[in-house]
């Protein structure tokens, strides 16, 4: 059944009938469109391969109590290499967070049972990545969908928090020690009181000795009386000695307290030592780097100074005779 053609189609048919070039042009356009589609498809395929869509993978999982910094699509690394990707995060009925991720089968032989997943922050402002800590080589292979243990590495915030938590008991200890030292019946006041008592006892003994000497000198002839007096004086001396003994006992008690305080000081010092040791791990590398950089700069400058033509431009220092000034001292008197 003949169809009715529109006026445009009729015109085009008329052109095609009279101009063979139009047919060739149609073929060329068709080929171009086909090539374009082919290229687009190729790009899709390449991207898909790059994304690992065709790679053979194994699904694994881990559980955590907090999904912070964990997001879908984040990289999974093994010894710094990207080996997989995080597939999804879901909250279970018991409140735990379950995370699924896949690992390229190519790298699976390196990850054995006993391996764990660690969330690592890259530098101060870097992204977080999941790092797989591989298990021992003699362990069996992992099963599909196996649950791996999970841990978080401390970031800067956590490190600061940790430092604060470690320092807090130390500061509390220092505070308690200081308070105990300054209390009315504390070590300092106690030592002061004991020192005053000892001084007083010393003065008593000294005055008694003087009195005894005076009595002996004055009452030399009256021996019996003098003996009586000296026995009294001796009694006083024995009382003073008793007082001194009591004072010494008190000193002993004070020393015990001082020992206790020293113990708490030792605790503080130990805590400070721990904090210092943990800081010592990060500070020396930074210092070493700075030292190396300074050394490099010095070497570069000294090498440049030695190199031609800079060494010719640098004025060599040499000993010079001071200019003669044989008349008219600056302070000379005019004639």
């Amino acid at each position, binding site marked *: 059944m003949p169809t009715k053609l529109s006026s445009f189609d009729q015109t085009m048919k008329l052109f095609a009938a009279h101009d063979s070039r139009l047919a060739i042009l149609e073929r060329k356009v068709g080929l171009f469109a086909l090539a374009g589609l082919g290229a687009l498809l190729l790009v899709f395929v390449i991207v898909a391969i790059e994304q690992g869509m065709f790679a053979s993978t194994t699904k694994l999982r881990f559980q955590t109590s907090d999904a912070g910094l964990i997001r879908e699509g984040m990289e999974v690394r093994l010894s710094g290499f990207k080996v997989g990707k995080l597939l999804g995060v879901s909250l279970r009925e018991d409140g735990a967070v379950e995370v699924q991720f896949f690992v390229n089968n190519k790298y699976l032989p390196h990850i054995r049972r006993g391996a764990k997943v660690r969330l690592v922050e890259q530098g101060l402002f870097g992204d977080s990545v999941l790092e797989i800590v591989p298990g021992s080589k003699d362990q069996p292979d992992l099963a599909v969908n196996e649950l791996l243990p999970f841990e978080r590495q401390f970031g800067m915030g956590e490190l600061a928090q940790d430092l604060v938590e470690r320092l807090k008991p130390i500061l509390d200890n220092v505070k308690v020690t200081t308070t105990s030292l300054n209390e009315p019946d504390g070590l300092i006041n106690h030592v002061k009181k004991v020192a005053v008592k000892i001084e007083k006892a010393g003065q008593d003994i000294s005055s008694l000795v003087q009195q005894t000497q005076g009595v002996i000198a004055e009452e030399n002839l009256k021996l019996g009386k003098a003996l009586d007096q000296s026995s009294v004086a001796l009694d006083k001396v024995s009382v003073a000695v008793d007082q001194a003994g009591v004072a010494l006992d008190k000193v002993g008690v004070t020393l015990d307290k001082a020992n206790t305080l020293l113990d708490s000081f030792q605790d503080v010092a130990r805590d400070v030592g721990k904090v210092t040791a943990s800081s010592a791990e990060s500070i020396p590398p930074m210092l070493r780097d700075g030292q190396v950089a300074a050394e490099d700069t010095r070497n570069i400058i000294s090498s440049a100074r030695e190199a031609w033509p800079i060494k010719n431009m640098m004025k*060599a220092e040499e*000993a010079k*005779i001071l*200019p*003669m000034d044989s*008349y008219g001292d*600056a302070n000379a008197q*005019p004639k």
Partner: protein
Amino acid sequence: MQMHSRSNSALLLSFCLILVACGSAPEKLNFRSEQANKLSARADAAFLQGEYEGAKHDYLLALRIHQSVENAAEIAIMRFNLARVFREQAHPEQAHLQLDALFSEPALPYPPATLAAAAALKSQFYLEGNEPSLALSWTKKGEGYCQKNCTVAGSLLLLRAQLAQRDNRLDEALKFADDAVAALNSGVQQMELANAQRFSGEISLDRNDFTRAIHSFQQALALDQKLGIPGKIRLDLLRLGAAHERAGAESTALHFYARALNVSDAMGSVQGADEVRAYMKGLQNNSAVNTPEPR
């Protein structure tokens, strides 16, 4: 073909220039000498800034280092410079000791030019110590060491001029001073040249040749201002004032005295300022005497 040979020549020339440039680099000193030279340069700067204690310290250190490696030329220079420092610190006996070490055993092969400078300095010390006969003998000794074009030839002539002036041989003194001016290099010996100009002006003033005296003092002032030595600028201004006063130009003389007073005040020299004021007072008294009484 011609172009090719031209570019070859240019290449060869460049290569030769590079070789010459490499070859002209000074020989590298050993570590000790380099260290001593650095100390010496620091001492030079301290001396020029008037920090004599620092200069002495650094020169002594540099001297010890040079002595440890027997750098004869540098030892002579350090001793000369130390003598200059001791002179500024008013320790002439210490200054003499440093210079005497250069003329006594064990003598090292010191450069004659430095020995001539040391002899000239000794002569100057004796002249300042009012011992003209010893000064003359050391001047002669200096002249012996000083060969033609010796750097201290001008200074030795200036010393001769001062010795002649002391004996009131003004013509001879003026001739020596003029010879000194001619011998001194206007580029590297500006301080000594200014001294010679000032001395020549003083001899001219003694001979009542005011025009020449003023000219010499102006030359000295220009040099001293260029070098920036306040004490010497003050002296030049004072001499210019005196020359104008003697020539009868009292207002000009007062102008120079006032400038000298300003420089003295700026230097913080109370003694110098008092001296200038005494000159100004003398000038005012003279003008009062010479002014006729109103009828």
